[in-house]
């Protein structure tokens, strides 16, 4: 899936649960992100997202458009998905088709998505967004309300297979009209609402070369562009000297994010003799630029415009038998990022690792060619970085590491003319700020020996995703 990684350099970039590795997220803070972009159908998602040596017939065509060549026949799909995270969440309903006609093949998909704000906005002293004031110096105002917003997605791909050469070439485009990106409101603590408006475009060129003995090599080049404007509204108080009293007013803060990524991936797979096992290796490289970031760093990690170079080097093995599958991926992920703002230059050096493993078991239903499938998988994303902060006052070094776990499970009913899947994921290890602040005074024991500093620690957050999908092969 493409869009889930468009904010790849942002501190709040979406948590990458993708089975593809073309786009590499750079995450500098362990902020949990809802699984907003994981809505396209997948056959393997319940297996921890294992991908290097194990094909995912439903999702792979969206990662590398050339892999739609592996679609045996035209197929319709739908995959309504729901995710929840703390006070927010969203639901998505994509429908689409994988089609094939002779040497031509491709994909089409559209999706409508509704996203709820990812934290409970401050209702304010007056309990509502409408601010009336008798102030002579402060104008009355009205704060836009915070409501669920709708995103729209359109994806299409077209490819052609040259059977004589075992070569497939394809191109794809994925456009997103965005009104809400989960977690954006975290940039604006205590805000009443954050209006968002933007879009993203992901364009890919893919190639797949199949050799004898079931070996294959594939390549993807991707250009990803993302832009989102923010308009955060705060209800805050201002002291009116004439009234000698505080009066509420709407404060609007404009911000936004812009990023561009150029990436490439090379992946090779082959069977291991006649053992039934397959092995694969991948190499991916991204060059990203983020000319605009939101103003606010809510955690003690600088958030500034910059650029990054990110790489994935991975190997995987998998075994696919008639009634079961198993796979494991191991990826090393070095990243270098440089950002700069008025306070100085920041250099991040990441040394991340990703481990995924999953199993699947098919159980025949009676003597027919129908099955029930169970899946279980787990992914560990270990993030570790050192940060050099070059300031006028000198060099400050900061280190940060954390582990994010994603447990996944799934079950499917596989009939010759219909497949129905349920897959779930539970991600943990990241958090969201526990906001202590509010817009009204809070009681403080002024005689206490020491007053607590207003620390904003992360509260553990579970991101729970449920995806129901069906695929319907055309006769």
């Amino acid at each position, binding site marked *: 899936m493409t869009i889930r990684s468009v904010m790849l350099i942002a501190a709040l970039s979406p948590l990458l649960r993708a089975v593809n590795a073309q786009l590499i997220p750079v995450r500098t803070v362990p902020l949990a992100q809802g699984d907003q972009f994981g809505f396209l159908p997948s056959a393997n998602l319940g297996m921890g997202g294992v991908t290097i040596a194990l094909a995912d017939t439903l999702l792979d065509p969206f990662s590398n458009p050339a892999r739609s060549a592996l679609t045996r026949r035209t197929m319709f799909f739908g995959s309504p998905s729901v995710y929840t995270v703390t006070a927010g969440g969203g639901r998505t309903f994509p429908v689409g088709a994988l089609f094939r006609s002779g040497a031509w093949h491709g994909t089409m998909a559209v999706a409508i998505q509704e996203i709820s704000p990812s934290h409970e906005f401050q209702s304010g002293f007056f309990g509502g967004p409408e601010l009336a004031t008798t102030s002579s110096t402060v104008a009355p105002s009205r704060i836009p309300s915070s409501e669920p917003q709708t995103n729209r997605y359109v994806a299409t791909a077209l490819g052609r297979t040259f059977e004589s050469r075992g070569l497939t070439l394809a191109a794809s485009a994925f456009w997103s009209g965005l009104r809400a990106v989960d977690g954006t409101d975290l940039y604006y603590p*205590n805000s009443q609402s954050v209006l968002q408006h933007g879009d993203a475009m992901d364009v890919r060129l893919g190639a797949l070369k199949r050799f004898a003995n079931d070996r294959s090599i594939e390549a993807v080049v991707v250009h990803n562009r993302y832009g989102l404007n923010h308009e955060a509204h705060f209800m805050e108080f201002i002291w009116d000297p004439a*009234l*000698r009293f505080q009066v509420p007013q709407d404060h609007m803060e404009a911000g936004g994010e812009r990023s561009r990524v150029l990436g490439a991936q090379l992946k090779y797979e082959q069977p291991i003799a006649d053992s039934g096992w397959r092995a694969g290796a991948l190499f991916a490289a991204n060059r990203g630029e983020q000319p605009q970031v939101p103003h606010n760093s809510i955690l003690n990690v600088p958030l500034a415009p910059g650029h990054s170079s990110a790489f994935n080097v991975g190997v995987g093995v998998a075994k696919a038998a008639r009634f079961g599958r198993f796979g494991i991926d191991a990826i090393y992920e070095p990243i270098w990022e440089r950002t700069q703002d008025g306070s100085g230059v920041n250099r991040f050096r990441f040394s991340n690792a990703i481990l995924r493993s999953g199993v699947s*078991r098919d159980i025949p239903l009676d003597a027919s060619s129908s099955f029930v499938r169970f899946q279980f998988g787990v992914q560990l994303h270990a993030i570790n970085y050192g940060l050099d902060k070059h300031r006028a006052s000198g060099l400050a070094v900061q280190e940060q590491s954390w582990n994010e776990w994603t447990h996944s499970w799934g079950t499917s009913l596989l009939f010759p003319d219909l497949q129905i899947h349920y897959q779930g994921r539970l991600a943990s290890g990241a958090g969201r700020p526990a906001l202590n602040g509010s817009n009204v005074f809070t009681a403080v024991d002024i005689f206490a020996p020491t007053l607590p500093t207003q620390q904003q620690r992360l509260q553990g957050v579970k991101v729970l995703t449920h995806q129901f999908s069906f695929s319907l092969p055309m006769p």
Partner: protein
Amino acid sequence: MMRAITAVALVLLAGCDRSFVADPPIVESSLDTQLRASFNQWGAMPIGAVPAQNPALVSLGRSLFFDKVLSGNRDVSCGTCHDVTALSAMDGLSLSVGTGGSGVANQRTLGTGRSFVPRNAPSLMNTGLGFFYTLWDGRVNEGFGFGPGQTGTFQAPPGVVFPAGLTNIVAAQAMLPVLNRVEMRGTAGDRDVFGNLNELAQLGDSPPEIWRGVMNRVLAIQEYASKFAAAYPGLPAGALGFQHAANAIAAFQLATFTKHDSPFDRYLAHDNRALTEEQKRGGILFFGKARCASCHSGALLGGQQFANVGIPQIGPGVGSGAPLDLGRGEILPKNQGGDFYQFAFRVPALRNVELTAPYGHDGAYRTLENVVRHYTNPDSAYRAYDVSQLDPELRGTFHGDNATIAAVMKNLDGRVRQGIRMTPEEQRQIVAFLKSLTDDSARNLASAIPTSVPSGLPVR
């Protein structure tokens, strides 16, 4: 098959189990997040604009503010002690030198036989932002009504009844210096700078009589008569009282001395780059560990309450407590808080505090660094007080005897009684934060000084 289904069900259950969920690491909040969260606790907020002032009133007030004709001996004006050239509308002296003195600003010296004004001249900066009290002991205060029509009732010091028609607390305060013999009026028998008998000093201590005497002087000058007519069109000269002059002085003060475009104010307006990292750390201490904000709270960062923080006693003293200064305890009856408020003074509002040295009700401390250090242990700071920071004429008036210190410490405010533990670096950070409260346009207000005043007396 049942075994497989059971196994998967167990996996699903495990997914919901708490032990299956990893906790996030501890990540320190950004300085901005910490600082902004503390604003809500203490009511720090942006300040709106003061109402626009009538230009004619401001022009009149400007002349009156700098005109020495208001003083009995025609030798001091409001601007003498509230100097605007280099400081935040104060003279830079620990204790001010009133009528009979010579020199300007911090070069001013006592006249023969004169005594210091017993308290530090307060800064006039931002006095129009809506304070309920004014002066170090809060002896002028305004009714606590909120909103339109709820202002305009002012409580005066004992022996004074304010006339009707004062527009705000700044005007109410402006009624008082002309009554004070040390500050402006002079003592009976004084002769003015021209050698003429000071008729104001010859009057009794009836405020209405004194105010009328001052107005007689002022309205005898044609230019003032014109300025009053322009400021109060339709009001006959016979109906003009000193309250009209005070309102004009207040209008000038509000128009000229309202300065709150500091880096901190810009930070309050959501500009995270307005403060340096050191200032942000100082702010976090100010609103947190160092609990400065427990007194210097609210939109104005102080000014609305009283506290005895153990500032060393200096000077001639006030009233029944002399040679000590009991502060608010002097003006309140014992059964109405007089005991509780002994040695308590008005907590100053801190915007532009960098420009208002020396600090304390009697100007005991010359630097912000010394003030902040004082709070680490008020008792020992008092005992170790270094008189060399005072003007030579004041050094002998430091009250450092054990009895005085014990009396002051007995009533020390609970918020500072234990002392506030701060490392030297933390103290520097707090000072850096305090300096972020400075509006650069307040550093020199010399442009407010007129080249001449209607009386023809020298302005400086």
